[in-house]
Every structure is written in C-alpha cells, then in structure tokens.
C-alpha cells in the first residue's frame, strides 16, 4: 500500500521524530502514509471523527478512551508528531539499543504502563478512583454483569492493589499490581519494530 518512492523528506520533522521515538525512516514513511489515509478530509490533522471511522475501533469497548489518548491536552486535532509519539509507546522493546537511558525511551515499560494508566485516569489526577474503575469495568463487561457484581469486582481490585489505603490506585500501585505480567511483550505491536 502506497508508493515507496516518496522520500522520507516529505514528512515534516522526520529526523527529530526518528531520534525521539526510535522508528526507522521506512516506518516513519509508512506511518505518514497511514496518517494521510486516515485523514480523509485532508486537513493535515486527525479529528475525532476520522479516528472513529475505523470500524473495529468504534466497537471496541474502550475505543473512545483510546481515541482520546491521542489528543493532547485541549487539542482538537492530532498532528502527525503526536500520532507518532503515541504509537511509539507500542514499539517492541529492543534490548540492544544503547543510546539514551532505558527509562526515557518512549517504549520503556514504565512509559507503556503510564499510557495504560491514563486510559483509566480520565481526570488526570494521578489516581484511579473507584468511580473511574467502575466506568471502565462497565464498558468492558457489558450487560452480562449486574451492578452488585461490578461493585464487588471493583472493590476486590482496589483491595488488592491499594496499599496506602486511600481508596484509589496510584500509578505506583498500578505498576506493582502488574509486576508479574510481561508488559513488554503484551503491549508491543510486532510490525512496529
């Protein structure tokens, strides 16, 4: 899909993005083509409707949250740089990259977890409150489960994770509850390597 003859120089800020995110030139090019494909009205930025037009994303239970995560604070459209930065989180972790401290890379484990954390934490207060957890559970579990069951599940989740007893899950508690899960593998899209 798309012609490979167009050079990466057409892409704005290509070099900076490559440096920042670790994508290769060909990947940046492909992402740019994808960006242009999604941007149907050719405004140079992706609006909410552009992303919503993806059929599977619209039936994804947390689809609206995912789309929302692309938009930076208060912005109406997603420009290419933000698009690439968000997708950089999902690059597979390459173990032999030496430049830059591992923690600062966009696809480090901490950054991946932070991205997932922000899906819960819509009001950006740094904690997942019980209400926020319930919202996510509701959208994921659908109608199968009654309100009481939802409450008890949320209750149990908070009980397990909440170590400082403030009835909310902070980012560190979130990280700790997922320490046994192989996030690097789970949150990576192989084709973005």
């Amino acid at each position, binding site marked *: *899909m798309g012609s490979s003859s167009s050079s990466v120089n057409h892409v704005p800020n290509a070099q900076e993005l490559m440096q920042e995110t670790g994508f290769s030139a060909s990947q940046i090019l492909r*992402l740019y083509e*994808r960006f242009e*494909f*999604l941007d149907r009205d050719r405004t140079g930025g992706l609006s909410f409707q552009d*992303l*919503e*037009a*993806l*059929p*599977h*994303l*619209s*039936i*994804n239970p*947390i*689809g*609206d949250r*995912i789309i929302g995560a*692309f938009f930076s604070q208060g912005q109406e459209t997603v420009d290419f740089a933000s698009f690439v930065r968000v*997708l950089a989180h*999902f690059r597979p972790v390459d173990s032999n990259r030496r430049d830059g401290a591992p923690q600062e890379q966009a696809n480090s484990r901490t950054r991946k977890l932070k991205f*997932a954390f922000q*899906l*819960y934490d*819509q009001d950006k207060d740094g904690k997942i409150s019980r209400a926020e957890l319930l*919202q*996510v*559970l*509701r959208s*994921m*579990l*659908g*109608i*199968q*489960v*009654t*309100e*009481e*069951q939802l*409450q*008890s*599940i949320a209750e*149990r*989740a908070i*009980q*397990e*994770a909440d170590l400082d007893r403030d009835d909310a899950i902070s980012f560190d508690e*979130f990280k700790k*509850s*997922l320490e*046994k*899960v192989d*996030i690097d593998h*789970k*949150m990576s*899209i*192989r*084709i*973005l390597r």
Partner: protein
Amino acid sequence: MAALWTLWTLSFCLVWPSCWALTPAARLPQLHNPPTVLGLNGTDGSPSVDLPMALRVFSVDYHHVQAPFEIVLWIMLASLAKLGFHWSGRVPAVVPESCLLIMVGLLVGGVIYGVRHSAPPTLSADAFFLFLLPPIVLDAGYFLPGRLFFENLGTILWYAVLGTLWNVLGIGLSLYGVCLLAQSSLGDVSLLHCLLFGSLIAAVDPVAVLSVFQEMHVNDQLHILVFGESLLNDAVTVVLYKQIESFLRLPTVSGLDVLLGGCRVVVVGLGGLFVGLFFGLLAALTSRFTSRAQVIAPLFVFLYSYLSYLTSEMLHLSGIMAIVTCAVTMKQYVEANVSERSNTSIQYFLKMWSSVSETLIFIFLGVSTIQDVHMWSWPFVCSTLLLCLVWRATGVLLLTAVVNKLRRNAVTFRDQFIIAYGGLRGAICFSLVFLIDDFPKKRLFITTTIVVILFTVFVQGMTIKPLVELLDVKRKKRALPSVSEEIHSRLIDHLLAGIEDVVGYWGQHYWKDKFEQFNRKYLRRFLIREDHQARSSILRVYQELERREQRADEEAPSLVDPRSHSRPLLPEEMDSIRRILSRNLQSFNNKQTPAYSRHTLNQDANRARTKKPLHRHLSLGERYTFTQGEVGESSGSGRVRKGLCRSHTVCSISPRAVSQEPLVSTTSAQITDLSSSSAPREDAISPQHQAPGGGGAPKKHLSFVLENEKEQ
C-alpha cells in the same frame, strides 16, 4: 438410567430382526404373494408356495424392500446407539462420537459375518463420491465461521496445502523405503502405490476430537485452524489422490507428466472455487425471491450446492472446493433473505444428512473390518502408524515455526500439540482406500488403513484430553492471576486491538475493507430482499460484536451479593468473580459456539444452560420478524410499540456512517434485552446508562436512542 436400558433393549430388538432379515433366503421359508390371476404360479421364477386362499391375507416379501430396508435398519441402529451414548452420563466428554459409530459398525459387521459367512455389501466409488461425501463437506462448509476463517486464511492454507504435501510425500516415500527394506514380503508395492497410500492416509478428520475440545478450553483461533485445515486438507487429499491414480493408469510417468500433474492440481482447485462461487451467487439470488414460497426455500440451498458439486465433478474439477465455496458464498445472503424457520430447517437438515452419511461410512468400516479379506504385514502396518505420527508432528512443528513469525497471535506449543495429536483419520481415508483399482496388495492397504483409523480414533481420541491437561498443569505452576491483573490485562488487550486498528497492519485490512465496500454497495443490494437489507446489516454488525467474545459454555455466573463494601470476600465469591472476569470481560452477550461438531448444533446445547443471553440474540431476530407482522415470541401491546419504535429508531439511523451503527445496535440490543426481562430490571439499569452522562460521543448516542424511546 432407565431410559438408557430402554434404549438398549430397543436396539437389541432391532438387531434380531435385522439378523433375520439379512439371512439368505434359503434358510427360512418365505411366503410370497401367490400370483393373482388364474392361479398361475412360478412364472416369475421366484419360489412360491401354493397355499390356500386364507393365507394370502398375510405375506412377507422381503426381497422387494431388501436394500432400503437394510440401510434404514443400520441407520436406525446407529441413531439409537447415539441416543444411548448421549444419555450415558460422562461418556460423551471422554469418548469421541466417532468411536461409538465405529463400535456400532463393528457390531453390525460381526452380526452380518456371523449370520451370513459371505461378503457383505461393499462401497462403490459412485456411492461414496456422489452420495456420501457431499453432505459431510457441505455441512462443514456451511457452518464455517466466515470472518474467523478469512482472518486466518493464510495460516490455514499454509497448514492445509503445505502440511498435506509434506505428509503425503513424507509418508509415501518412507513407506517405499520400508517396502524396499522388506523386499521379501512387500517387494511388489511400487513407489506410485506408496504415494497413493500416502495421499489417502494424510486426510485428517479431527471433527471427532472437536467434541472433546469443548472440555479443553480451546480458543477460537485453534478451533478455526484445526477445522479449516481439515476441510481444505480433504480437498487437497482428494485432488492428489485422483491425480496419482491417473498416473497409475499411465504406462510410464515422466517428469513432464509430474509437472502437468502439478499444474492440473492448481487448475482443479481454482476451477472448483469458481464453480462454487457461481452457484453460490445464483443460490443467493434465487433465495431473494422465495418470500412467497417459504417452504421450499431450504430446498434451494441443497439443490444449488449439490448442483455445484456435480458440475465440478463432471468437469473433473474439485467438487469439495466447489461445494465449500458455494456454501460460504451463499450463506450470508440466504440467511438474510430467508425466514428464521427456513434457516433452522436448513441447519437441521444439513446436520442430519451429514450425520447419516458419516454413520453409513463408519458402518461400512466396521463391517469390512470383520471379514476374511485382510492381509497383515507387521512391518507395513507398524511403520505406517509410526510414520503418520512422526510426519504430522514434524510437519506441524516446522510449519508453525515459520508461520509464527508472521502472525500476531503466535500458535503456542500447546496449540501445536493439539493440532498434531488431534490429526485423527476418519471416513475419507477409509472410503478412498476402498476405491483403489484392484492390485495385489490392495487388501494390505485396506487393513492398514483400518488399523490406522481405529488406532487414531480410539487411542488418540481418548487420550488427547488427559495429555493436554497434563501440559496445562505444567504451565500453571504460577498462581492464578489476581483480579486487578485480569482487569488490567483485559484493558491492555482491548487497547492493543484498538491501536492495531489505528496502525492498520500496513494495509492488511485493505483488501478486506475493499471487499466489504463492494459487498455492501453491490452484492447486498442485488442479492438481498429489499425490506431485509436494513435488518440484515444490523444483524451482521451485531454478529460482529460477538466476534470478540470469549466463548462461555458453562453455566451463567452465580450472583454475588456483598452486603457492605469493606467486607473481605469469601473464596466462593472470589471464584465467581474470577469466572465472570475470565469469561465475560469481552462479551456483549454469550457467543454461540460455532457448530463444528457434526453431531450437534451448539445453540441447542447451550440453550438450556444460558437462557438469558441467548434469548437476547434470538429475541433480536424475533423482534424484527415481529415488526414485520409475523407472530414472534413476545406478546402484549406494550412490546408491540417498543418493537415498532425500535425498528423505526434503528432504520432512521441507518443512513448514518457505519461506525455509528454498531453503537446504536449495541444500545438497541441492550434495551431489547432489558424489555425481554422483567420491568424492574429495566428501571435499575437504565439509570446506570444515563448516570455516566456526558463526555464522549457514544454516550450521546445512548441518550439519543433513549430519548427516541421516550418519545414513542
């Protein structure tokens, strides 16, 4: 248990008349109708007894009905045995149904052998290829889950085509090596014969195992891989078999012949595909006009499919490919065009016919096992058994190693083991071996095939579940994940799915999207009835919602009722929460398991257990049929209004963009379910939907629909 004993008694009552019926005429006095006119007797050559008028009132003429009578008796026996089998407690979970059929066949074979001491009826090529094979393949093709199949098509083709070639060549060449080594006894088996044998023994039929799969928590992907592979593998096997058989008929086989043979295989496969497409589209078009003669609508499905099979057989193309393609093509349009009852009839008839076919083939198998025509050779039989296992295992391992690099969801070792070990041989192997042109070692081949089938079905079929559990146990050393882990993992799964949609697989979905557009714009308009088009698109989207669900085939989760928020939860409640999470986290309703099993329609199996969610799916269809004036399951004028306004609501939204339909249908599905259960629940849950309130377009859609409800 009383029912079980009654059934067994019934079946024994049938066995004795069948024995009696199968005895040669000479052993019992037969009473015939004496010729009617003028007391002439013996003119037709049959033995007749000149009896007084009084006895003419009752007479028995068995020869008249012999052939159909025997067939019906066999089928009846097998069916009664199946009933008994399913009533016998835990047996069906452990023993595949194919085992039962083989045992019935052995029983019948034993009876016939004991009674007749002569050659039992044999299977002819025509009977098999024209009558027994098509129903089995049509059943498999019709119930193929289309979307899942096409998503995994590459992998399935990889396993089916390359895997089969690997098996055929491997087994064929190795057996030839064995024959060369055992020159004394097996010297006259040529290379071509070995290859022929290899091609027919490579035909895998894991349907037997699929019923046991249910118990093994086999995921969707593995299910479709195994099932799709067996289907295409049948097609490849039959084509190769016929090709090698035609080579056998040539005096010599040169390199050019092999090359032409290879080309021919490709042509045959593709040709079958096109024939199937043609007839599938014709069938879809015909079904559009069946609204006034609904009773014969199912007939068209069968007629067109069978016609496609026969046409491609006539042109020496692959009949299996044709019939499968025909079924897959016409399914979505026919299901949309035809009434619910016709759909049900189609499904039931397909299952019935394929079941009868398979039963007959296994009975032939049993019957031919117990006769004098065997030839045994230890090296040949044992090496065949060994080679089948070895080549299949190595084939699967190698192919998976390559294909995992290209797939998103890797095929795990457990999956590979199941694919390899679940490669049972079944009806097709047996039939193909019987149809070989006669040559000195044919009986050896038949014996070996029967041994392989019996071994794989009994030994492998019954041990696969314990072995897989053993594998699972080894991997479950770590503790069960905590609730938070499960929730967060599921969230991440959804997140990844969403991001993959955004990234778009570099255009992997490109062709699929193109096809969907073409489908929507042209095919559906042309092939689906006018008034069904809106409904069908909503139903399809609804089915698409079900696509991402996990299969939930156990009982509905029990209700957990915490009295206060800070009470620590009991282990049972913890268990039920865990069960809820692992099963329901991605579900919008309980997915109906695809009907892979030849022996059941899974919606029947699930119906008793999971009433409410299935009811929603059914009631969705019923609602729409209800609004078109037929009598559905709902009653009362209140629901009439709701049904009408719901379809009105949905239809008024349909001109909008596709992305918004799913949300609307979700909400309408939700509301449909609510009204099908009792009213207080509706009140309890509708505030729940309104409470999260603003933010995000989906919530706006919800309130839009709810407002519409209130207006009506």
